[in-house]
């Protein structure tokens, strides 16, 4: 301001000379542009004009002047434009909107002399510190300032429209902030305001739209139009805005959010964009190996993750030995992974919740996305059903390998199978302002040869039904009904009469009722009840054909009901301190029909100590367990962009997987807690420090956690799990502990972006007992199958231009522990293999480098579709990473096998387009 005034004073002084220098000229203009007029004047006088060419516009001017001074001509020429001029010596300075004043306005005097008439005051723009969005920082200039006019008020008018639909919006209040002037729009969305010249902030307000403000400078009559978004979308925008500082602001620890749009550039595996692959490049989330099923979150077992797709649990979210995830990236909205503190509304798993939501279908226009890669094709279509209210999305992905394999001449491949597909349908309907419903269905299927004579297949089937209801501004409810099934089967068709088919399946149905009560800005409650029914068919083993001598075996089905109530409160004590506290109580009943074995008290369970078998009728309660779980988390801001957090939580889980990880095939089955197998439990404490730099461009976080486990299911030496009718004799339940420190640095914007994560973690189990056979490794802690102390990953993108980018991906992990055969001995006249202690050895370390190159089609708005090419090379170094080493006894001789996936660099080219 001060600078401006100084300049002003100088100019006032100079003005006097300038006016004295004015000389009359003759000129004639016929439909001339302003530029031509200026050139003409310059040619006839010594005046030199200073302006920006782009201000001049297309305005044409005609007129005849004889012996007129330049200022008269200019007054006429510029009358129809927003330009003002100022003559100083022989210089003519053009300005846009603003006029240059040669006097300091005598405001006080004016008010004193003419109170009735509002005096015009010249408009000066104060350079305010603008905290709003960037677009609002520069005020819009309305109209052309006139220096000598009697008019004191100008009319600002305009229309308010819906951003998405373009429909006019009535009853929207439009006011000038802090001035007490306001009006509201009519049925056409039109409004008028009479304002004195000056700087205003126009604000719109209405119940169902997001409030919007625009800064304007009124020089003259003008038009200011608004386009507003409906409020429900505002919420999501607020979220996105909050995302920038989520790292530091989130109250709970150990939560990771992945936005699907953001992962487009990272190198792909066989052309598949994969959310889960992104997840495992973040600290704390790992897999046992490439191509293994499941995720190990913070040293937890793979069965301890609740993976939800639209609220329905998905048991095997992977295709092809876990190389691809079974989640279609094009239909996925976002993924939240809770690895630290799990919100109280979720339960039944110890280590984490992966909350994956399918995005809503576009209700406005037909759109879609297509991707063509070397292994799969993927098509997603979104169709509006009721405009702006309801839409349906259909997504499908499939391999083409089936027909390629069949059409091959090569005998060894002709009969092999390798195919998968998945499909998803989602319908969302906004019934009215207070109600919306959604329905999703999902199915995935895999089928491939694991050996030349066996085919392994599995499928996931999910259905989810949700209804959200708003009672009032403070109370909301959501009711969800879900069902999911996971199934696998193996068909063995060998050379002998032992062809068999093996089937396994589990099914669960959940009804969940959740309420939200927003007590105040600072305190929100979530509470509700959920009930889940489990049904497991542990297996049938039957002859594959008539020639087979296999005898049919059906394992008894299992049934369990888990019911829980939960309550949680998010409470902001002050600007710095916030809590998230929750409680969850669950009760579980193992239900009949079934037979439960009782074993001799104080003896290891085995067929040798079986005392009796008790039979239970249908739905008879065989055993119940219950548990109270606490979820507590706190955040404290040390600075605006620097916070610390701490959390404690404990969890119960009533279902276990049976997996020894010693074979090539993923035949993990699930087992419900029963009389002999207790629910598993865990507790975790975590602390972390989070800091964002440079306006959230960089995020740094450091978290440390410690976990203890009880009743973790493990296996006796010699345990055989598949098709075992008395599993309780093969399993052990013991303690576990895991701890680790996770470091993540992330750069969100810029030419270089990406993240680097490093985790040091340990996960150990302890199986001790007074009986030798129940003691593993002498009852000491030993590394769990998934204990991989060092885990490093880096995902880096380099944006060459708007359309070209490179990306790279590095990952390194310590090899996982394994039990090796170490020798032979003779006993009772026969030879036996001596094995090492459990997990005494490790398979070689894992490392991999991938690179990718992306090319995006041009960004012209009117183009029918946006295209996107990706060339990736997976495992550039060609590292032969073993994912499992296993042993098979063949004719009394032990043989070792290593299975690995992609021991060579795999290049792929994928084409995507979106419309």
């Amino acid at each position, binding site marked *: 301001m001060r600078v401006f005034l100084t300049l002003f004073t100088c100019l006032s002084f100079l003005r006097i000379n300038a006016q004295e220098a004015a000389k009359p000229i003759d000129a004639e203009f016929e439909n001339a542009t302003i530029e031509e007029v200026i050139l003409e004047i310059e040619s006839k006088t010594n005046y030199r004009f200073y302006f920006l060419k782009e201000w001049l516009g297309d305005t044409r001017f005609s007129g005849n002047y004889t012996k007129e001074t330049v200022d008269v001509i200019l007054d006429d020429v510029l009358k129809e434009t927003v330009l003002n001029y100022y003559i100083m010596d022989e210089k003519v300075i053009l300005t846009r909107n603003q006029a240059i004043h040669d006097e300091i306005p005598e405001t006080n005097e004016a008010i004193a002399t003419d109170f009735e008439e509002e005096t015009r005051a010249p408009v000066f723009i104060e350079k305010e510190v603008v905290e709003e969005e960037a677009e609002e920082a520069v005020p819009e200039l309305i109209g052309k300032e006139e220096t000598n006019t009697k008019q004191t008020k100008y009319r600002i008018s305009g229309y308010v429209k819906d951003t998405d639909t373009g429909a006019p919006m009535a009853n929207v209040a439009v006011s000038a902030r802090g001035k007490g002037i306001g009006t509201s729009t009519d049925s056409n969305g039109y409004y008028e305001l009479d304002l004195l010249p000056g700087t205003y902030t126009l604000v719109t307000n209405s119940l169902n739209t997001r409030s919007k403000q625009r800064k304007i400078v009124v020089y003259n009559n003008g038009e200011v139009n608004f386009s507003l978004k409906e409020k429900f979308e505002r919420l999501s925008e607020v979220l996105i805005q909050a995302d920038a500082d989520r790292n530091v602001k989130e109250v709970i620890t150990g939560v990771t959010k992945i936005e699907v749009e953001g992962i487009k550039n990272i190198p792909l595996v066989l052309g598949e964009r994969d959310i889960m692959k992104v997840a495992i490049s973040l600290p704390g989330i790992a897999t046992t190996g490439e191509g293994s099923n499941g995720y190990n979150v913070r040293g937890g077992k793979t069965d301890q993750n609740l993976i939800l797709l639209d609220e329905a649990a998905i048991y095997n979210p992977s295709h092809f030995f876990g190389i691809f995830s079974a989640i279609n990236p094009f239909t996925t909205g976002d993924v939240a992974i809770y690895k630290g503190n799990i919100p109280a509304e979720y339960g039944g798993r110890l280590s984490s919740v992966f909350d994956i939501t399918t995005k809503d279908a576009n209700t406005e226009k037909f759109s879609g996305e297509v991707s063509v890669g070397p292994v799969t094709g993927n098509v997603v279509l979104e169709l509006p059903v009721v405009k702006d209210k309801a839409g349906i999305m259909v997504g499908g992905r499939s391999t083409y390998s089936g027909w390629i394999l069949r059409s091959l001449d090569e005998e060894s491949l002709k009969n092999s199978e390798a195919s998968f597909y998945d499909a998803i349908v989602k319908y969302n309907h906004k019934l009215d302002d207070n109600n919306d419903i959604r329905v999703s269905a999902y199915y995935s299927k895999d089928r491939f040869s694991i050996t030349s004579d066996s085919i392994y297949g599995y499928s996931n089937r999910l259905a989810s039904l949700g209804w959200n209801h708003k009672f009032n501004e403070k109370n909301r409810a959501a009711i969800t009904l879900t069902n999911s099934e996971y199934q696998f089967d193996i068909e063995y068709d060998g050379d002998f009469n032992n062809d068999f088919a093996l089937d396994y399946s589990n099914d669960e149905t959940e009804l969940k009722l959740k309420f939200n009560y927003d007590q105040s800005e600072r305190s929100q409650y979530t509470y509700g009840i959920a009930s889940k029914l489990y049904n497991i068919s542990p297996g049938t083993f039957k002859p594959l054909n008539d020639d087979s001598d296999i005898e049919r075996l059906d394992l008894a089905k299992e049934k369990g009901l888990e019911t829980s109530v939960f309550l949680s409160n998010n409470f902001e004590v002050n600007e710095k301190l916030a809590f998230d506290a929750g409680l969850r109580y669950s009760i579980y009943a193992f239900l009949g029909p079934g037979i439960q074995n009782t074993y001799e008290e104080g003896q290891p369970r085995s067929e040798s100590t079986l005392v009796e078998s008790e039979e239970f009728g249908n739905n008879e309660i065989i055993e119940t367990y219950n548990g109270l779980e606490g979820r507590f988390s706190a955040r404290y801001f040390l600075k605006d962009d620097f916070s610390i957090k701490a959390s404690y939580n404990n969890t119960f889980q009533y279902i276990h997987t049976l997996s020894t990880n010693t074979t090539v095939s993923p035949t993990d089955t699930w087992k419900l807690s029963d009389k002999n197998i207790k629910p598993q439990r865990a507790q975790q404490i975590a602390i972390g420090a989070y800091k964002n730099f440079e306006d959230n461009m960089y995020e740094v976080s450091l978290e440390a956690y410690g976990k203890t486990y009880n009743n973790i299911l493990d296996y006796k030496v010699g345990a055989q*799990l598949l098709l075992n009718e008395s599993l309780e004799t093969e399993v052990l339940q013991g303690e576990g502990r895991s701890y680790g420190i996770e470091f993540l640095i992330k750069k969100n914007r810029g030419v270089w972006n990406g993240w680097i994560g490093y985790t040091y973690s340990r996960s150990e189990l302890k199986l001790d007992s007074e009986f030798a056979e129940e003691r593993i490794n002498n009852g000491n802690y030993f590394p769990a199958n998934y204990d991989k102390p060092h885990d490093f990953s880096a995902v880096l993108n380099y944006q060459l231009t708007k359309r070209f980018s490179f990306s790279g991906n590095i990952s390194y992990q310590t090899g996982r522990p394994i039990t090796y055969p170490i020798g032979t001995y003779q006993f009772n006249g026969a030879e036996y293999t001596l094995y090492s202690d459990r997990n005494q050895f490790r398979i070689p370390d894992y490392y991999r480098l991938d690179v990718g190159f992306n090319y995006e089609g041009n960004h012209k708005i009117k183009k029918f579709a946006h295209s996107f090419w990706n060339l990736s090379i997976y495992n550039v170094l060609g590292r032969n990473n073993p994912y499992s080493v296993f042993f098979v006894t063949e004719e009394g001789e032990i043989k070792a096998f290593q299975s690995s996936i992609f021991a060579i660099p795999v290049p792929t080219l994928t084409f995507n387009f979106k419309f």
Partner: protein
Amino acid sequence: MKKLIMYMTVFILTSISCVEELNVLELSESGFEDFLVVEANITDEMKTQVVLLSRVYQLGGDGPLPESGALIQVISSNNETYDFQEVEPGKYESVTQFSAQNDIKYKIEISTSNNETITSSESQLEGKSVLDDVYFERNFNENNDEGVSIFINASDPTGKAKYYRYTYEETYKIIAPKYSSLDLHYTITYYDTYSEIVYFTLPKEEQQQICYNTVPSQDIILNSNVGFSQQEIDSYRVRFLSRYNTIISHRYSILVSQYVQSLEAQRYYENLRNLSTSEGILSQTQPGFVNGNLFSINTDRKVVGIFQVSSVDKRRVYFNYADLFPGEDLPPYFQSCTPFAPLEANPGFFPTYPLADAIDQGNKYFQPNEDIMPEEGSYDLVAPICGNCTVMGNNYPPDFWEE
């Protein structure tokens, strides 16, 4: 382009998963330790008790490696000490005869020549069961194969026996199917420029037609009566012999031993059995070290094996194939016994003698070749096992044998 895509897809699918065999020996080498293996089963029979000691050897390596020079004592809870002496490498026998007594606890102490001291937890007799009967029956097994099942019946007057382990020793008569009382011999005489071969037959010096072979069981056979109200074991099958099994061709005898053992021993054997059962690619067995009840006192090295005290009862039974399968074909012999007639000689600058070579390889003379075809000699030979049963067993019956 189409071709390229196809090539790419096939390439990916074939490279996607790769299972390769590793060298077990290399993998195991780093973890290899020659732990002591102890096999000690003190029974309630009055006899010289036996303890076997050996060492763990490399996978695929040569073994077993007997452990010599160890000092072994079995110590009872009534303070009696039984010393053992090495009678052959790795085999130790008690200096005096003794038998395990009821309600007395026993443990073993071993000190090896490299100063490892090993002891066991205490073990004692867990009841006694009488093997009332061992009998055979022609029937079908669960796979619907026809054959002979060996069953046992047992009863337990003490009411304490719970865990049973069975071993057996089977002895069978072998009759060489293409037997001749003559043997074929030859002599070669070398001259300056040529050689001369002469074949001739001589009567056999020993009887090679009828033999007897005795083979101990290798399988781990376990049974328990926990969960059953009565203390009797009724018709428990310890052995199934397919009707196509050569060893039952003539006369067959089985000696079944029934051990009543502790739960600890039972579980040890169960684990051993689970780990050694042939594994398919689909079945999962959790590998690991099987704990017995032996441990080293002065080192942290592991000890393989178990020290157990058990009661034993034995019973023998015989049957003849002809009685069970009257008039039916014998099971196929161990090996095909089609006669063949190699040429006596292949003349030439370097003459060869196929018949002489065949004799040297142990093939037996059967009969003169009466219908000589081209490229054939004049003697019919058969594979060694077809004309000489001593390849498979002894040519005299064992002491216990009853015809």
